[in-house]
């Protein structure tokens, strides 16, 4: 054996800062909430805005999570992601309107059933669309970012125009199902029921995604693939199938987000996906491409900030999110929770 002494390394004492560092992004959310309270001052308004912000954040997270995974895993930029949001919204809301009997009834059970049907329809439609999109538009341009940006934008334009062909150019207004209308009051604060539902759904989706990614083999394959796709293939996994699967899942999630977004605003337009894309991009960038946790935190920050600023100084709402993006990129240029590639 060896005459070298037993390996017994001494570790430097970790400072509080070092130990907090991995959790820093998550701590930003309550920090922002506190800052929001200082800006808004009125506790009732603050509560309403915070729930609103969290709800918006959850929906953006649902829409953005697919995009960040696709980029992290496949190195594919999909500028057409917004199309899935729009299509999901239109298909879902159409189903909801068709089930008018169920949504009009004052029964929570029936209402939720109708919403579930709408969501399933939307997710099926966008999953199928995602499969076709990947096959026809994305696959031929693997590896070429410039072409990807161009063709996926082209795909977005075509999808938007097709929505108008099928549903007409007008915005479609509608109301939420009976039991989801209205608000709950806590003292002075009125919190819309639907927003609470949205927060709940968002948490469930996040938890489900984390579970799949961390505890299932397919999740392992995806996480490993984000780091080193070549090695995953060398272990015997058909990476292409995983790619397509993730793309379809991402598209389905975008569809879900679209339905929820539509219900939130109570109106759907062909351009809504495009409009959501701005915030989605900001979230994906500040979260770190490929990171679901980063996307989650980023989305909550964006949602909260948007709502707080809209209350205090409405004109600065979008600019404030740009400022947030700049600030975070200055702090961590790769995003808050970057995924380290290979090595």
């Amino acid at each position, binding site marked *: 054996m*060896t005459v*070298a002494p037993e390996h017994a390394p001494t570790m430097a004492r970790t400072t509080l800062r070092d130990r907090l560092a991995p959790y820093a992004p998550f701590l930003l959310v309550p920090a922002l909430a506190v800052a929001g309270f200082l800006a808004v001052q009125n506790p009732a308004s603050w509560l309403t805005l915070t729930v609103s912000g969290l709800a918006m954040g959850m929906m953006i997270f649902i829409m953005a999570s697919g995009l960040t995974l696709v980029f992290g895993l496949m190195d594919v930029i999909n500028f057409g992601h917004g199309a899935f949001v729009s299509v999901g919204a239109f298909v879902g809301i159409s189903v909801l309107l068709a089930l008018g009997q169920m949504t009009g009834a004052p029964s929570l059970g029936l209402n939720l059933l109708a919403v579930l049907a709408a969501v399933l329809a939307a997710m099926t439609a966008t999953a199928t669309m995602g499969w076709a999109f990947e096959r026809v538009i994305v696959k031929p341009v693997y590896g070429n970012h410039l072409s990807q940006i161009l063709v996926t934008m082209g795909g977005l334009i075509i999808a938007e125009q097709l929505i108008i062909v099928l549903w007409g150019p007008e915005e479609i207004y509608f109301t939420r199902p009976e039991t989801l209308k209205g608000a709950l009051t806590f003292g002075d604060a009125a919190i819309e029921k639907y927003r609470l539902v949205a927060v709940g759904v968002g948490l469930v989706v996040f938890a489900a995604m984390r579970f799949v990614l961390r505890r299932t*083999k397919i999740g*392992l*394959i995806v*996480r*490993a693939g984000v*780091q*080193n796709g*070549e*090695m*995953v*293939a*060398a*272990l*015997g*996994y*058909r*990476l292409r199938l995983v790619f397509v699967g993730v793309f379809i899942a991402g598209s389905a999630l975008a569809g879900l987000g679209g339905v929820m977004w539509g219900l939130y605003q109570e109106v759907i337009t062909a351009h809504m996906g495009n409009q959501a894309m701005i915030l989605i991009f900001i979230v994906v960038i500040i979260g770190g491409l490929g990171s679901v946790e980063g996307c989650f935190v980023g989305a909550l920050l964006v949602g909260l900030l948007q709502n707080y600023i809209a209350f205090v100084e409405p004109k600065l709402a979008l600019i404030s999110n740009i400022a947030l993006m700049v600030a975070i990129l200055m702090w961590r240029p790769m995003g808050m929770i970057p*995924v*380290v590639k*290979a*090595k």
Partner: protein
Amino acid sequence: MSDPILKIEGICTNIAQYHILQGVDLVVPRGGVTMLLGRNGVGKTTTLRSVIGHWRAHEGRILFDGQDITQLPTAAIARAGLGFVPEDMGIFADLTVEENMILAAISGPIDPARLDWIFAAFPPLRTFWKSEAGTLSGGQKQMLSIARAMAEERKLYLIDEPTKGLAPAIISTMARALKDLKDQGASILMVEQNFAVAKALGDTANVMDDGRVIWSGAMEALANDAPLQEQLMGLSMEAHST
């Protein structure tokens, strides 16, 4: 002599416009360790990568256990029974050691007896089982990389410079584990720059130069012939091994 587990016939591989492999002929017999030697840049790693399919040979043929795998996708080649230990180890840094191993066992959970054997060969892996693989030292990562290949029975192991950059104590551990593997009847094709390890483990030797195999024969014959070593590899390996 039984038919070889791997037969490479005249493969030519380009990387961008560079002709790296210019007609490589190589035979890996069943059971035992076949060494692939040569100076830096002659195409040893490229040969391994061409076999596993990361790079495509545009000419020639690769026969694995009788099957033509030249144009098969990497995943199919791996599933046919090839275990690959790349030069850069290919560790998934954000995953734990356990998760790395789970991925390596594509057919299902790792056989407990096999796992015990791996832990016996590489004790640090048991210590750091639940730690993120990125926090391991270089030597430990190399152990993990080889352990992944050993997670399941493979028909052929492709191992690229397993002792590169490792401390002598770790090299001993590595060499012992590989000898263990060999004794169990595994077939191994190994690229190795450390001649002492090559001599200790290798049964047959192939020396490459300029994208071709220029000498092939028994390891002993090469090891005992210093002038031959000098002629093939430009300098006496003996004099430059650690």
